[in-house]
């Protein structure tokens, strides 16, 4: 099994940390993992994206021109990465911030209203975990127990009280997932 994922959105949306939690969860499942950010001088507001690769075997290139899954959280990223999904691959997006929905017919497209659900849950910060939940529903590459262990490893201890809320957000994402 090798799953090559691009997660793309604005800086501040939790793109990099979503990737990090996914990668840590992969380690909990004895997978090889690579987390490769596009890093630039900007911190907030600019575009941010990260490639996450999970595999049962040694991982080759961290740089990819096509992906099994694209998780897209703003229009700029849609313009850039819709075309980079492998035929038959998965595109998952949050319609908030995406003006032109994806149009490809040769890939599987899913929607997660993550922004809205996060507001309903009363904590906009869990937005990225809701989206991650949507992804794990479409592609259960890692089981939820290992995601919980991944959260424990990647969050500093002082934030461990937030783990139940994050797990709740992941479950929520699975529930509100819609196939296009």
């Amino acid at each position: 099994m090798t799953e090559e994922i691009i997660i793309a959105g604005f800086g501040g949306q939790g793109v990099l940390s979503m990737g990090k939690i996914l990668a840590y969860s992969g380690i909990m499942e004895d997978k090889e993992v690579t987390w490769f950010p596009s890093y630039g001088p900007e911190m907030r507001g600019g575009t941010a994206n990260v490639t996450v690769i999970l595999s049962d075997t040694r991982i080759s290139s961290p740089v990819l021109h096509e992906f099994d899954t694209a998780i897209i959280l703003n229009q700029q990223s849609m313009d850039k990465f819709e075309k980079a999904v492998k035929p038959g691959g998965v595109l998952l997006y949050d319609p908030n911030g995406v003006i032109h929905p994806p149009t490809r017919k040769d890939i599987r497209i899913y929607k997660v209203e993550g922004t809205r659900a996060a507001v309903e849950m009363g904590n906009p910060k869990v937005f990225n975990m809701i989206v991650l939940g949507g992804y794990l529903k479409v592609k259960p590459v890692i089981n939820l127990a290992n995601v919980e262990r991944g959260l424990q490893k990647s969050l500093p201890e002082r934030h461990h009280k937030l783990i139940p809320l994050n797990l709740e957000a992941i479950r929520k994402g699975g529930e509100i997932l819609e196939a296009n």
Partner: protein
Amino acid sequence: MGELRLMKGNEVLAEAAVRCGCDGYFGYPITPQSEVMETLMELRPWETTGMVVLQAESEVASINMVYGAAATGKRAMTSSSSPGVSLMQEGISYIAGAELPCLIVNVQRGGPGLGTIQPSQADYFQTTKGGGHGDYRLITLAPASVQEMHDFVELAFDLAFKYRNPAMILTDGALGQMMEKVELADQKPRWTREEILARSGSWATTGKTPDRQRNVVTSLELDSEKMEQNNIRLQAKYQQIEENEVRYEEILCDDAEYLMVAFGTSSRVCQKALEVLREQGVKVGLLRPITLWPFPSKVIGEMARKVKGILVVEMSAGQMVEDVKLAVFDACCCVPVAYTGRMGGILPSPGEVVEAFEQKLLKR
């Protein structure tokens, strides 16, 4: 099995330095490697192992602090990125001339000049051909994964002390910023004074005792006859390193009809390109130099006799390709050697490498 963690290459350099018992780190911040010193400052090793971590006022100062610390027989290191390493070249030449062991890490970014903060491999010439003055060589290790970023810290120190020669880890911003699973080594103690005396007492400035002559560490020798002898001694040492320390990895080379040669991040991209080409039925192998100096010329020469063409992939305008061509030439072989790559902070994609391979070697 050691502790497993998800870490950035830069963070791992710091962890590995503390864990292998490094005595001192002297550095100056520069993107994309600032996490090395940041991580060391967070680890606070001066409270545990006693390792010194010091932010110098400049790269020139930090390499000269390494020079001073190394002269005492201690394990000292610095890290920087391309423009900072350029500033260090005078000190590196002095350290090589004084035959001191130390570790320098270059997390390369795109140049020339101040360039960009994105990854590059364009300091290959500077590292392997001597960016500073004089006939000297740096033992150069090129990691291709975060695990190797960890493993090569201790290896570099071992080689540096084995040959009393500066060692370089030549990596890039991609490996520095990327996170992968890494197995950390257990903490080793720093060398005691007795261990340092036993290992390096014959040359290091450990404090003169009445029973021995003064140890003098210098690269200066104004008598040209003697200076030539110093050079002859250095060259003999370099020859010994070339005979004993060549390291490389072969991937699917046994049945290969074509060969790709790439190091570090480029070699990872090539591995993906190789998978794609193999699926198409093209028998291609990958040779990854792990030591850039000493360079695996011999094995490349041997491979050249067996294959129909070689593609060298680099994140530069084509630097290592010159050493590959020399290796092929030395093997009295006339197989075509092509280059492809990107510059200025852009990574080649696996698709681009496949395309270049098809165009340049398969003439499709």
